[in-house]
């Protein structure tokens, strides 16, 4: 389908948004207990993505991988501010407070990610890189190729991390096969 050049980027970004916003919210729901945190981190990721969509090059990886790369940066920045005991939420551009119905939605999403959160906790013996590989591929539904792009590593490296992580998990009986 051919789109009007003038609104092409907006329509294209909407496709990216609608296909991935749920996965991005789930990514943060595995990390946060508060709906407002999930909302703010998801909003920060999406707004940053919208602001830099002009520079997104699909030849370098899928939109999903690109979006998760941004999400990882947002999360890292958030953690750094928390570690420094600074107002991490306050730095998130003051996104709006949620309506009650939205809080309920996001609370349900947080609950739905309980299994994923537990898996990540059980994977604590893995390195951070291995955990990230397992999460993106096994929980966030990225392909190994997309996960490699999101983490900024060659596909071979990602596959090696994934393989090593799964082997260790099998050894530790952390996953059911």
């Amino acid at each position, binding site marked *: 389908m051919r789109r009007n050049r003038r609104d092409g980027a907006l329509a294209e970004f909407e496709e990216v948004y609608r296909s991935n916003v749920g996965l991005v919210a789930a990514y943060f729901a595995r990390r946060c207990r508060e709906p407002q945190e999930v909302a703010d981190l998801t909003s920060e990721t999406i707004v940053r993505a919208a602001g830099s969509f002009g520079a997104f090059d699909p030849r370098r990886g899928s939109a999903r991988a690109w979006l998760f790369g941004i999400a990882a940066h947002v999360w890292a920045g958030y953690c750094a501010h928390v570690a420094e005991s600074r107002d991490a939420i306050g730095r998130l551009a003051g996104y*709006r407070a949620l309506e009650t119905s939205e809080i309920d939605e996001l609370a349900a999403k947080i609950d739905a990610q309980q299994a994923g959160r537990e898996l990540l906790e059980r994977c604590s013996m893995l390195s951070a890189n291995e955990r990230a590989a397992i999460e993106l591929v096994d929980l966030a539904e990225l392909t190994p190729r997309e996960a490699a792009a999101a983490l900024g590593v060659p596909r071979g490296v990602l596959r090696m991390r994934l393989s090593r992580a799964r082997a260790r998990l099998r050894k530790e009986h952390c996953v059911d096969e």
Partner: protein
Amino acid sequence: MSEFEDNLWITVVREHGDELTHTARTAHTHRRASRPQLLAGTTAGLAAMATAAALLFGASTSPPAFAVTRNADGTVTVNLMHPSGIAGANKELAAMGVRAQIAVQAKTPPKLVCPGGTAPTITFDPASIPKSQLLLIAPGQSSAGNAAALKGGSNGSGNTGPGATSGGGNHVVRMYPGGGKIRTDSGADNNVVRMYCP
């Protein structure tokens, strides 16, 4: 899409819709790198001129997509001839310091058709929008008669906007044809502000 995701999309469109509309994707237009700058310059120039005249065109060779006019009595009139004019109208409203924005529900673009080919119009008094609040107008499907319905909602900063529910009561803002002011009311026909055909 959940309510959160729909509201976040409205925020994205409000904050980046205009920018995205005018974005020439790098990956698709390597040989046209100067194009976005030209477009941006044109838009900025038009916006500057519009602060006085308040009439903007969506494209120089097309019919005007919108018009934003400040009337002598202080009210503001917005004519929306085409959904593509939403971003420009919002920019103009912001440039005029009016705390009102037309939101986009991207999946259901508004049908802005009036008898005789005229444009739906909304006139309101910006002074009646409570401070710290933003009038958010979300185009929806046409309602009965010749009115294109617009739905009020909460703004993007956590404040309850005109037309949104707040606490236990419904605070309703309505637009009336012929320059009627925003009013707070409650009743069955709530949460709706209407853009009337002239």
